């Protein structure tokens, strides 16, 4: 049981991550009605930009107002997206230094 507890504790939406956050994508799960655009469409757009389960991710930069949008490095590419959309990306923090 400790295993599941540990993973649920360390699993969080990318939309809540701070600058410097390092980790791995755990799941892409788009909540309904948050985006106005159909959830499967948002999911596919994220996938098309390379956000797939298992990819390494790091939050590099934050926007000037409300720390939004964010720029993340994903397996070598840098993608900018709003925190609203990043909420759909569930990530597990890695313990490696930043």
């Amino acid at each position, binding site marked *: 049981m400790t295993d599941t507890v540990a993973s649920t504790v360390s699993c969080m939406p990318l939309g809540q991550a701070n600058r410097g956050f390092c980790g791995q994508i755990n799941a892409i799960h788009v909540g309904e009605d948050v985006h106005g655009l159909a959830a499967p469409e948002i*999911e596919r*757009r994220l*996938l098309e*930009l390379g956000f797939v389960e298992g990819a390494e991710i790091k939050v590099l*930069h934050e926007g*000037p*107002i409300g720390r939004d949008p964010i720029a993340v490095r994903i397996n070598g590419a*840098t*993608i*900018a997206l709003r925190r609203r959309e990043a909420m759909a990306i569930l990530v597990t923090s890695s313990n490696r230094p930043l």
Partner: protein
Amino acid sequence: MSTQSEIGVPRFALVGTPNSGKTALFNALTGSRQKVANYPGVTVERKAGILQTPSGRKVHLIDLPGTYSLRGRSPDEEITRDVVLGRLVSETTPDLLLCVADATNLRVALRLVIELKRVGRRLMLVLNMIDLARRRGIDIDLDRLSAELGVPVVTSTAVRRGGTEELLRRMDDMAAGRLEPPGENTWKPLTAGELRAAQREADRIIAAAVGMPARPDTVSARVDAVLLNPVAGLAILLGVLFVMFQAVFAWAKPVMDLISSGFDTLGEGVHEALPAGLLQSFIQNGVLGGVGSVIVFLPQILILFFFILMLEDLGYMGRAAFLMDRIMGGAGLHGRAFIPLLSSFACAIPGIMATRVIDNRRDRLTTILVAPLMTCSARIPVYTLIISAFVPATHVWGWLSLQGLVMFGLYAAGIISALSVSFVAKHLFLRENYTPPFMLELPAYKLPSLRSVVIGLYTRAKMFLQRAGTTIFFMMVVIWFLASFPRPPEGAEGPAINYSLAAMIGDALSPVLAPVGFNWQINVALVPGMAAREVAVAALGTVYSIEGGKEAAEQIGEALAGKWSLATALALLVWYIFAPQCASTLAMIRRETGSWRWMAITFGYMLALAYVAAFATYNVAVALGAG
């Protein structure tokens, strides 16, 4: 196949993700032998060109809009999908697809290759920017990559001389070989599951065929640490915009003056050479005046696009959008809308052309809709004329010039109204029930290729002169006609324009415009003022029979101060903030949106705003005793 035997020229198409260096490669391959036009019925650019392979074979090449998949999420991507699938009636199906990939960033590109394979056409993967990849220590096993993908692989460096030799040689081989599709088209839009699987497959192939350096590239990230810094980044962005604005506004001025004085001299030459009469007036005022009023915008357009192309090639545009996203988003505009809007301070025409950097159609339309509200330089002569005639040259609080303050107020009113209109548009009639998500790849910084920028400028200039030139010129001739016909009767007194259709329109408008305080002289001046806002100043001079045209602005001002009430003057100022008094801008909107509807909407809403605001201003001013 059919295309080859029919025309004898094989047709190749460039496909690729955004930022793959596809356009730079297209420019390197075709040089100036390219044509930019629109696909029929849509505002998507169609870029096509002819290239010659080392053996002298001609190949027709088209550059398809960048896309991450063939799903067709936007009009641009639909074009790419339809051409690739051979569904677009107006375009011959390409014989070979060249999938261009950034060799330093292969993940997403390889997934696109996997998707493209399902289409069943001949396909070749072009690893562009290979020099950059090698310098960073990325080691790509080309044979292994080709074997894993089942697709031929070739490398190129678009921005370096000789960097396309290998690619051209391979294209030669392909063009000489069989071009019929090797397989069946089994493509269907990829589901989320298939996308995941394709990406995993791409990642597996990369792990097998590509050796990544121990230390990833950090140059772009380190530059971004400054350029995307919440404080420094915004300051630098403002600095860049300031220089750009200065350049469009100030650097273009001498050239623009040269062009307009050149056309004036030419017009005077015609005036001398031809006998007084209709032909003289038509050539001097209609043809030369019309052509001159179009060409005079060219320096501003070239300077603006020089900056835009440089910033885009450098990789900065996405960063600017990142910084501005929330700020513009509050008013319902896309982060990318700020450059077009800023350019519109110089002139709405280059501003509207610059909206091409916005890929979402809805965002682009909103920006086009509000761009004419930004205070363009053509309003300045009208503003300064009325301000200097009616606003006392006193100071507020001892140091603030009242005239300067009014000028600032007029600029602020333009900005605020543009933001308000886009806000209202977003919530009222452009509502599609969603805000498009902001997801954007920030490419690694690259030095722009001068050749590519020059080709880009050349195609823009050509397009502007050809396409806008015809419509704008046509409108100029119409306005000349209105101001010249019918001719004044024999022995008539006063200026000829008072007997023209323009005067009749002015008279007819009187009952409508009387409530906003305009007299018939203003109404008459408004008609030629449709050609360009500042023409109204000269037209007022003509109507009040003052010799000397634009140079006599001070004199006109004195005359106006004696003839108009303050309320009328203020109403005209407010009118000019909003009124769609520019035929060229309207023609440009028609051209860029591809529909009369959006031109009519812009004209209508601006006219309504102008009328209501001028009406309110006039009546408040009269009530306060300024009538």
